[in-house]
């Protein structure tokens, strides 16, 4: 991703000169700050249930359908934790990984394990339910913004670290 930006090679060289400890920290800080808008947009786009659903439901096969209000929440995650509407959105996280020499960093954006359904079932769909992608389109829409922010944040971090 970084190679698509002009001037990143020069900035990266400056960061390397600062040493792996300071340079790596600055790199990670810049990467996190650059992905903040993507995180916020993903939080807004994440699938969220409602407290109540009204509609015609049947008690089982062959039984009459009648209008009812169903309250599916609070549900539970596979670990037994209570799950209220917006759980996936609240469990969006960024995780960063350094390369062994601490000269490169990758930031992963996704949900924590207990909110796996937001990706496995909603984003990718299942064999019987169509997918409703929310994370990838959000990322694609903000890719150029993120890259521009990364360049700006890297510049700031280099200046800050060089002081």
């Amino acid at each position, binding site marked *: 991703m970084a190679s698509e930006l002009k001037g990143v090679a020069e900035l990266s060289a400056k960061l390397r000169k600062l040493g792996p400890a300071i340079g790596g920290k600055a790199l990670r800080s810049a990467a996190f700050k650059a992905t903040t808008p993507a995180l916020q947009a993903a939080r807004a786009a994440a699938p969220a249930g409602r407290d109540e659903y009204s509609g015609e439901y049947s008690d089982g096969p062959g039984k009459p359908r009648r209008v009812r209000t169903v309250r599916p929440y609070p549900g539970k995650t596979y670990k037994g934790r209570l799950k209220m509407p917006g759980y996936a959105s609240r469990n969006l996280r960024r995780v960063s990984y350094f390369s062994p020499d601490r000269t490169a960093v990758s930031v992963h954006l996704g949900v924590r394990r207990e909110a796996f359904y937001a990706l*496995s079932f909603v984003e*990718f*769909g*299942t*064999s*019987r*339910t*169509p*997918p409703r*992608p929310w994370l*990838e*389109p959000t990322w*694609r829409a903000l890719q150029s913004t993120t890259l521009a922010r990364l360049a700006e944040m890297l510049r700031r971090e280099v200046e800050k670290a060089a002081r």
Partner: protein
Amino acid sequence: MIVDAFYARLSMVGYNAFPHVIPQEFDAPAITYRVDQDNAPTEYDGTRTLKEALVTVDCWSTSYLEAQQMADAVESSFVDYSGDLGGLSPAVSANYIRKERRFDLLEQATGLYRVSLQLFIAYTRG
């Protein structure tokens, strides 16, 4: 729309292919596909005929190995491939095809393995 040409191309792989989901009356092995993105960049200094699409192909099977083999078959049908995509009229001509990602998942409720492929296709129509 690239979906009709893509369907025509996928049906040559030899498995049932459906948009989005496997219908209730069909079972795995099967292929599902969807168009994640299909657009022509807006340019005001001239009409651009090249369109860009992102297409996802999911290969479903009760066997992990078979799901992988199906994905391999789909992938290999696009290796060194360019030109008319589905034998349609007006022709859809693929100029550039790139694999964006490939991953696999197990759907525990149905016991189906899925290998998902996402392809980027630049194409012209007509």
